[in-house]
């Protein structure tokens, strides 16, 4: 057993010649709010899909609560809540029915599930939409619904893919509060984003993914001191991306000079 809730070791995913994720390693602990940053196409979603056991890693391992994400997928899901980038639900189930369905599939007692979900429904202001078919939901509503479904069993690790895309400013703020509370209760939160300012406000630890490789990772404060002492997370991000790009493009000998 590992002491980390999420432990990623040299995780890689290749599509033919293309390396979507290239040997990344990182850990996330309880109480942690961890942001995986990167531009479009950096490999964030691929990484998250490997954590969810949807994709098989080409190399390396990812473990959640000591369980292998691919080999022990069903077991892992007891400990994880997941919000995908673009959640899709059954068109002709109502919001309330979907939440209920998720609770049943997770084997929760209905009173417990209703209590947790009810509170979130109030805070995310979804109560009006609960009686509607999911086919009528906007993207933001689907995102809220997915968040409720992901939290209904009070997971040890919450994985979110671009959680705030499609949310209105009110919901974004609520989302940040919810994530902070989760972390306060001991849940680890691991999320991907390309919104730097949000990560800066929310996270202690970050990792920057660039073209499938880990350009930098660690506590935000340390990274800032190292990479861009005077600047913002934005500067840290560009500096890390630049450093990552140089050795990749330069010949092997030039790599030492660049670094």
């Amino acid at each position, binding site marked *: 057993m590992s002491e980390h809730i999420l432990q990623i070791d040299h995780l890689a995913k290749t599509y033919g010649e293309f390396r979507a994720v290239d040997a990344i390693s990182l850990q996330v602990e309880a109480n942690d709010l961890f942001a995986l940053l990167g531009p479009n196409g950096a490999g964030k979603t691929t990484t998250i899909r490997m954590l969810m056991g949807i994709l098989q890693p080409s190399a390396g391992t990812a473990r959640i609560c000591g369980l292998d994400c691919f080999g022990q997928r069903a077991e892992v899901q007891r400990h994880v809540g997941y919000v995908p980038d673009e959640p899709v639900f059954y068109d002709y189930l109502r919001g309330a029915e979907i939440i209920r369905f998720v609770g049943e599939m997770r084997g929760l007692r209905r009173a417990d599930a209703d209590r947790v979900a009810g509170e979130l429904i109030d805070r995310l202001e979804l109560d009006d939409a*609960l009686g509607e*078919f999911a*086919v009528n939901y906007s993207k933001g509503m689907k995102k809220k619904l997915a968040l409720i479904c992901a939290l209904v069993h009070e997971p040890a690790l919450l994985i979110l893919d671009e959680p705030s895309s499609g949310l209105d400013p009110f919901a974004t703020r609520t989302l940040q509060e919810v994530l902070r509370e989760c972390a306060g209760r001991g849940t680890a939160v691991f999320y991907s984003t390309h919104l730097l300012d949000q990560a800066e406000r929310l996270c202690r630890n970050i990792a920057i993914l660039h073209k499938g490789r880990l350009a930098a990772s660690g506590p935000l404060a340390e990274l800032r001191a190292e990479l861009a002492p005077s600047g913002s997370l934005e500067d840290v991000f560009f500096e890390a991306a630049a450093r990552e790009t140089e050795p990749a493009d330069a010949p092997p000998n030039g790599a030492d000079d660049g670094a």
Partner: protein
Amino acid sequence: MTILAGVALRRFANRHSGFLRRRRRGPQEPRGATPDKGSRVNLALMAFGALFMLQGVVMATRYVERLGTLEPPGATTAVTTNGGPTAEAPTRHDHSDERLLPDPRFWPYPLGERGMRRGLSLTFVVLFVALLLTTLGNANQDLGKVDWTTEWLFSFPATARTLFAAKTFEYAFLNPFAYFSVLPMAFVALWGAGFGWNAIPLALATTVYISAIQAALRLYCETWLRVRCSLSATKNVQAACTALGIIAFYTLLYLVLADAPPDWFRATVFAVPDAIAFVPPCAPVLLLQSGASVGYTLLALAVLAVALGALAVQGAAELVRGGLVPASGPYASRDRHAALGEPRPRWLRGVLGKELRLFVRDRNFLVQTTVVPLLVIGFQMMLNPQWLDAAGGNFDHGATIAFGIGAYAVLSGGLSVITNEGQTLWLLYTFPHRIEEILRRKVALWAGVGLTYAGAVLLLLTLRGGGHSGWALLSGSILALVGVVIYASIAAGLGVLGARLHAQRVQRRMRQSSVYLYLMLASLYSYGIYASAWSSKIAIVVLCTLLACAIWQKVHDQIPFLLDPNDAPPPSISSSDGLIAALVFFVVRGLTAGAMQIASRPSGADKSAALPSLTISQLTIAFVIAGVVTLGGYLAYFAARRIPNLMAALGLAEGADQRFRAPIPYGIALGLPAAALGIGYLQLLEHWPALQGLGAESPLLGADGPNARWWMAGLAVVAAPLVEELLFRGILFRGLRRSFRAVWAVLASAAVFAIVHPPVSWIPVFGLGVITALAVERTRSVWSAVLVHAIYNATVITAAS
């Protein structure tokens, strides 16, 4: 307008000619693109299309000829049943059965006099209604969705009228269904009217005309549904259209296939006024009017089509004047009372509850899965009324029908267990359950649906009576119901294996070949029920059960990779390999033996005389050739698939982490009880000759040379153990054992091993199969099983001779 029409054409061409471009692109696939293996299917579809067209022409010919002989109900001369001449008809119809096309001088009388004109008009009406309703019901899944592709088009600087006109154009010209149904009928009618090869362009013009007025109506109806109806109401209308469309389509088929036009049709034909030909869908019939000017008629048709199209476009544009989507439209389905605290019965929880709700709410799917099978069966009954009578005589027929109906009811639901999850599949992956378990529950649901149908049919047939014995009723019913359950899981398995989850369009997610494969397999089981010999029934049930297991093993391998566009499960030996290898072996053996029999026929012998019976030497040679071909082929195939540690996996050699455990001592030790079993069974046969009646098919061996004994020994003690053990234990048992517990793998492999033998030796061979499988399980070496088998065979032939 031109641009939009161009885009429509482009989309159509892209969808249907992917295989042409694919060749040029070369092996480098772009990342993330779903590999589309449709190319061969497309070619096959084109061939099918051509055949279909030809079939359409043939059917239409028979039909049109029969229409020509229609008599008013009051006329005294009866209409002959085979479309041949009536008393009054000119003799030139005598050879009508030998021609592909009706005689160009076919119209013997002015068109209006007989039923011809009105009959054809009515046919066109039914055809038109069938076309329109099926298109409304099925073609446009977009109708049942919130987003409407037209919404996007509305963001371009074009008027609503232009957009709708382009859409009408698309519907009119890109409607393959119309080309397959209208074209043959129009062509045959025109040819018969004496237009010669001009019938082809004229038939095309007719098709486009009918397609165009259908497009106009469809555009208006679709727009009306989108703007005026809520989504759920639209779905309901679509469901009704599907059902009615099927009825119209089958009515047409019934009219065309029936031996003679039915009375009600004749009555209707002579009851409708002659002016029916002026109803827009029938207008092409006016072309057939003798003395009519073709040019003016065509012009009138074109004007009519354009006018109707313009009217529909104008009407649709009026409909969206107040905005494309009404505010209440998609949101009208809200249930304000839905709340979390609502109690729910236990059986409606989880996957089952979700499935049932979705099933009941998606009316279109509901109709397609539950009503359509009933309609299809009903019309089949009308077309072949002798069905039921046959079922009355022999309950096996009834059981076959019950199974067929159950298997058909399972078809669309079972095949789509995974594809109807569609984009929502991610949600299932977040649950702490294995996906197979979730799928299994869905299979159970569909098996339940199928069982309901099959059970209802069985009940009906039982109540109908017919003097069947209780035993026949019981066994037939059990076979039919067990079959439905087996085939529900086969359908679901094929559905998972044939799914293209990354395809955008819902209809494209399921490979059509899965449907055909399923129907083929279902006919295999029907044969099993229908077969009179008990041994064949048991053999087919065992085989189909194992087939289901083999398919689900593949599903199990496939499931972790369903959402992975790139990776596939690691190569390994599967049960399906074992089943196919056994099949290949027996086919090759039979072919080789047959070839040798033909070759050994004395020259100059009468070709129709019976072949000389097979000698033991020929049998041995055929056995060895088949064994070498099958096993060699499979070894090469496994090697090409790069199965790791192949020799160890087959139990042929020791692997790095797989040592043999004393194969020779175990082989000898287990060979003794096997031999004892064989001798014991021989004794039993002698004392209880009734067992011989189990259907002994001792091979008719011809006279052989003095070496017969040696050939026999070589076959029984060397060739048979080697080949059969490698097939049944090396491949089949290993394949089964990968996914099943030892006891099931042992029993299943022994069962297959037994059913490929003549029924009289099922019992000892099953025992031998169990013992050899145990030997392999224990020693990890296939050689121990070969030893057991050789000892058994040697003992039995010694004792028997």
